[in-house]
């Protein structure tokens, strides 16, 4: 089967091959959305189990191209929550994660152009981002995430930006679509509305005391861990159980400063997250990768109501919740 790089132009029909392959999903989102997907370029930086799921989803959906960035070498830890890497590759290949993912993902849909970009994304100039419609980040320090997000926002072109983290059986997705026209579903039809998203920097500096008290605990827990990582200058998700006392102290300080009662960030939750480190629970990778996949497909196709602006899943209670965290500047 020959690999075909398909650059669909406006008005050009999908090929017979695409129509046959995508039949079932075209019945969900329509031909126009499928055409738009086939023109979209996605960049993913920082590869783990959750992103393996995400990449699988968007490759199957038929995006135009997927560019992978992660120079870390494959090792035996990598196969834990990952169906793209064989044990052989994990031991012997000497390849980077991006290379291994690339080879596996190409097979899922020969119509998608999958490639590797070497280097650290946060060191690239903003112009590099213009090649992409969507940027997805994980396994990255908060500082770098913010830098990349800001670069995306500075571009002329609107670039959709996402981060995702999965720790143990808990996860967080952040969405920044900047300024986005959405059709919101109402009981009597749909209504056009303009959604204004905050940047990552703004969304995580929101004042805790002003947030609704039912805000998901995971939001706060993640912020505590981010603080810890920054203060300790740790690589992302590098925790161990011995860090717990220090993490709890940071929680205490933050809560005091922010005027939030500590019970909003329970010990049990922090314990779980710290003990897990970078370890992802595979069913949660599937859930987060699925939700993220749907979000990216929505943003590219312009169909459906996108999440604004955080999504949380916690297997402890089984809820998948959207939180709309306003920017700090609101107050």
């Amino acid at each position: 089967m020959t690999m075909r790089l398909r650059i669909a132009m406006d008005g050009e029909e999908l090929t017979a091959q695409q129509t046959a392959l995508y039949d079932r999903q075209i019945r969900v989102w329509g031909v126009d959305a499928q055409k738009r997907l086939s023109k979209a370029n996605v960049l993913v930086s920082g590869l783990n189990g959750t992103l393996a799921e995400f990449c699988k989803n968007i490759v199957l959906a038929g995006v135009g191209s997927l560019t992978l960035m992660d120079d870390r070498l494959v090792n035996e830890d990598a196969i834990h929550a990952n169906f793209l890497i064989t044990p052989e590759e994990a031991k012997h290949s000497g390849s980077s994660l991006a290379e291994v993912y690339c080879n596996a993902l190409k097979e899922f849909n020969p119509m998608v152009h999958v490639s590797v970009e070497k280097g650290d994304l946060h060191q690239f100039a903003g112009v590099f981002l213009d090649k992409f419609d969507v940027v997805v980040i994980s396994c990255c320090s908060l500082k770098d995430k913010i830098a990349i997000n800001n670069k995306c926002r500075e571009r002329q072109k609107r670039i959709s930006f996402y981060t995702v983290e999965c720790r143990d059986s808990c996860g967080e997705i952040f969405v920044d679509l900047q300024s986005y026209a959405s059709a919101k579903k109402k009981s009597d039809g749909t209504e056009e509305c303009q959604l204004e998203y905050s940047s990552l920097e703004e969304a995580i500096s929101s004042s805790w005391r002003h947030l609704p008290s039912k805000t998901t605990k995971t939001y706060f827990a993640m912020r505590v861990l981010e603080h810890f990582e920054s203060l300790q200058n740790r690589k992302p998700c590098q925790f161990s159980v011995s860090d717990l006392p220090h993490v709890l102290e940071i929680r205490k300080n933050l809560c005091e400063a922010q005027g939030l009662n500590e019970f909003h960030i329970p010990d049990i939750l922090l314990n779980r997250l710290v003990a897990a480190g970078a370890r992802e629970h595979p069913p949660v990778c599937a859930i987060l990768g699925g939700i993220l996949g749907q979000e990216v497909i929505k943003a590219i196709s312009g169909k459906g109501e996108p999440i604004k602006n955080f999504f949380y899943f916690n297997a402890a209670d089984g809820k998948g919740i959207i939180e709309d965290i306003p920017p700090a500047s609101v107050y």
Partner: protein
Amino acid sequence: MAPGSDMEAVKRAKVLMVGAGGIGCELLKTLALSGFEDIHIIDMDTIEVSNLNRQFLFRQCHVGQSKAKVARDAVLKFRPHINIKPYHANVKNPEFNIEFFKQFSVVVNGLDNLDARRHVNRLCLAAEVPLIESGTTGFLGQVTVHVKGKTECYECQGKPTPKTYPVCTITNTPSKFVHCVVWAKDLLFAKLFGDRSQENDLNVQSSDSVDASKNTEDVFERNPDEDLENYGQRIYDHVFGYNIELALSNEETWRQREKPRPIYINDVLPEKSFQKNGYLENSIDVNMAISAMPALGLKSPQDIWSLAENTKVFLEALSLFIKKRVKDIGNLMFDKDDQLAVEFVTAAANIRASSFGIPMHSLFETKGIAGNIVHAVATTNAIIAGLIVIEAIKVLQGDFNNYRMTYCLEFPKRKMLLMPIEPFEANKSCYVCSETPLILEINTRTSKLRDFVEKIVRNKLGMNLPLIMHGANLIFEDGDDIEEDVASNYARNLDKVLAELPSPVTSGTVLTVEDLQQELTCNIIIKHREEFNEEKEPDGMVLSGWTERANDKQSSNGESTSSVLTNGPYVASGKPLVSGTKRKLSEMEEASDNSCNPSSKSNSADRENPQQVDDNDVLDDLVILEVPPEVPKKKKVKCFVTLRKAFTYLMSALQVKRWSHFSVYLL
């Protein structure tokens, strides 16, 4: 609930996965990654191209091969040391009996039809193995947990059986496009290309012409030396012209309805010479599937053709069947992947629709309806698979207080896209998991045993190999090992009306129906009734006796079925089952992470859905009522009470009997 703890239970577990398709591929992958080491898979299907957009364990080169086997090979690549045993077989086969099911610690379903689901449910109940059910359609999905003795079974809440249409609606008075599709597929297509010996309701009877049928039987036969063009036009004029005229002659039918208009070839295509021989030869590439569209310059399956174009497709497709696929004629069944068949059915349905003033549809849409295609994407399946495995782990760890039914929504409800609900207790009147007699209203003088077996025992009750007893008399049995003379006795019985069976079945008779494989026994009390409403009770019989739960009639599991007169994917409304009459009162908020949660409650969130007051979730939240700050500190009292109790109190205090909207101001 830390996944690291007690993963021993997972390692030791033996899991049965039924279905290796959309959900199955995602599920097998996630089970393997989550530490399961002994997985058995049952799936009877082979791989098709349209699967590849989501069943990611399969490749183009696997088309035609067994799903169960290919799935297993693909997963072993990244988990070479686990045990996966594939069965390329139908789960309803006798080899998958109670003993077989008993070997498993949990059964997880990734099925796409109600019939198989019910069958598995019964086997799991009989074998006392927990079952985790699931389903997806587009962006919607759900996962439900069924553990005998702890939760309801899969059938405690009635599931809609595949929709059937009254014969008269299909043959005489279609009002929706789906009726035209059913006519085109199950009547016209079947008549022209299918088994000729099958009874067919295609010919409209005018009120009293009995002998008309004798002549019209010959209409569909083509004389060996008849011109193809002539034959095509003759059929066309007969079904779209003559039959309509015949129907119109029955004035009564059309008193309250819009009359259809007869359509004749000459009206639509005045130039007869559109079909030249050369046309047909040029357009067919021997390597391509035979198709009418290219010859007619019709490129896109998304286009809605004009009446003239539909007519041309009709005639062209008919010609092509006769010219190129003459071997198929006489035993062809409609297959959604048969391009020519889909073209023919689309054209026929559209012409009929046009006649009845119903909007026409594209080939793409018609194919979906005729083929009962379930629209599907990879992401929903992946999410559901993740949720299934989370529940499976809870089941294996005996974490029964935390079992959840989880709904994956397209639009958030109270900020949730994934909504967990506690499982319901078993329905005490469920005929499957508790033994309640049912009541069947039927005309015992005109209904045959065959009707009872097909419509009730197989369709409604979902039995596979039934046994029917009247007292000590075995009046019918199904199976492979029945002796010839006994079998012919049963065959005779099938053709008898109930009241005339050797042991007559009349009002008050109790029939016992059993399926030994499913270990299911039902007692049915027969009540004779003379008349049935053809529109509302198209089966001519009504089964009742179990208490349906509220809101459950809309549930659907994204199923496609193979019943003859069926509905399509649009029957799936996917409304979550938020019924709460037997709910357990519980604390939903992150139970294991925290013990109490202050909340200020307002009900504005519920206003977006004025029709669906899912008050039960709201009412079960804990509310803290605080005395206002001006009261001196030592007199402050915190009162923990559920909102439900608060409203019950209010309602009685205010003597309010019913409420649908309410506003609460908490100070």
